[in-house]
């Protein structure tokens, strides 16, 4: 039973509750233990970087220190939280002065950062740690050919961490294939959804989301699977407005990959937060159940 320190991030409390529920349910079914950090704080997302980078690092450092207390590697479902925690961890490990400065601040909460843990994103934990073979074995209800657009988004993939493939990663597709779904060729899979531009530069964000939706449609996707709450909101919650703006007719369900994974592992839709979508996922569920009936 592999255990991780689980850092949900602000969005998973309410806005992306279905991600939280489906993540924990999928983890449970794959013998992963996710222990939530006690009293974690916001990671600061991109907004804090616009004010002060050290401030952002301090916020993430507190969460890292909390994870170190559990003596477990950290896993974050949100791409933004993940990126902040990952790079703060890297900087603190390599810069002793910075670590000293931040540890002074952490003393206020009786915490200390020692650089003893690693940070992972939820997608890589399922795709790499658990692995495709293991998932295949545990599939109880194959998604049988459901056409899924694997939307990585930007913060999981970039900035480059080691020498890994950043332009054409494949682990999301492999994960989806393991569940029995058919990942479509999604050229814009690592293009940005606009992130917080949704609020500050709405037109730009709409344009970016529209391109992503159109590309998914062009490639025959029935659903877009995401691994970040911001991406999910940008792609799903504003489809009406995007349709208005561009005269389009998008009606694309946007689900978290853990919801699809959870279904494949045999969980019921309710256990995976289905029902809170603005764009109905009924077509996805009926597609899977239809195949089920036909089996």
């Amino acid at each position: 039973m592999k255990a991780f320190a689980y850092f949900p991030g602000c969005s998973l409390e309410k806005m992306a509750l279905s991600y939280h529920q489906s993540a924990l349910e999928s983890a449970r079914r794959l013998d992963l233990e996710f222990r939530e950090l006690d009293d974690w704080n916001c990671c600061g997302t991109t907004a804090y970087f616009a004010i002060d980078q050290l401030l952002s690092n301090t916020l993430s450092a507190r969460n890292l220190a909390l994870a170190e207390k559990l003596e477990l590697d950290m896993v974050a479902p949100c791409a933004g939280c993940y990126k902040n925690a990952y790079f703060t961890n890297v900087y603190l490990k390599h810069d002793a002065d910075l670590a000293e400065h931040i540890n002074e601040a952490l003393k206020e909460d009786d915490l200390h950062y020692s650089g003893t843990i690693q940070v992972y994103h939820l997608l890589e934990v399922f795709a790499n740690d658990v692995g495709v073979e293991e998932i295949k074995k545990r599939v109880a209800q194959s998604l049988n050919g459901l056409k899924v657009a694997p939307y990585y988004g930007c913060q999981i993939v970039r900035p480059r961490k080691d020498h890994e493939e950043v332009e054409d990663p494949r682990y999301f597709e492999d994960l989806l294939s393991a569940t029995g779904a058919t990942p479509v060729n999604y050229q814009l899979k690592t293009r940005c959804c606009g992130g917080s531009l949704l609020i500050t530069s709405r037109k730009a964000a709409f344009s970016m989301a529209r391109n992503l939706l159109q590309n998914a449609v062009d490639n025959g996707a029935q659903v877009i699977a995401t691994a970040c709450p911001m991406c999910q909101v940008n792609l799903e919650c504003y489809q009406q407005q995007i349709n208005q703006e561009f005269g389009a007719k998008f009606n694309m369900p946007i689900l978290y990959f853990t919801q699809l994974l959870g279904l494949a592992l045999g969980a019921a839709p309710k256990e995976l937060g289905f029902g809170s979508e603005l764009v109905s996922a009924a077509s996805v569920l009926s597609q899977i159940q239809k195949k089920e009936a036909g089996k």
Partner: protein
Amino acid sequence: METRPSFYDEISNMMYATHGEPISTCIQCGTCSGTCPVVEFMDNTPRDLIGMIRADLKDEVLASNTYWYCASCFHCNVRCPARIDIADMMYTLKRYSIWRNQYPAGVLGPTFAETFVKMILSGGRSYEPVLAPAYIFSYGMQGFLNEALTATGLILKGRVPVLPPRIKRLENFRRMVGHVVPVSNLVGETE
């Protein structure tokens, strides 16, 4: 004779935390701008902006909406042949523009960022309802109504928090942040 650092020097020095190469090594190839997903909404392309910084065109740079439109998707970073941390440069300009209180009229980024920071300090976690006033009134009537509609939809689906969050050790958290930035007068207090 006293010399003040040039705008180019200031920005280069502020990119202290970047793990990329200095912007002096930019060969103006345009890969960043060719890659940027937001570039069509920017006054100047990222490459152009680097050129302007190197020419010490401080006012023009700060008046350009480019850096506040950057989504920090890091695509330019991974493709730049000179390995410049362009996203970090954009963040540097964001910070500089808030510090100098000099940015284009109408950009919502500064207010949004400041509001966000204050929001986190007040509870330790995000609370969307508090953010809305920071931007919603600049959307115009149609935009306001659309946003209200979307928000209503989300509320009905139970996706918007009702009560503001409050982490248990909020006081410790605030004191911790105080080591980095004075909490009481966090932002908006410029020269």
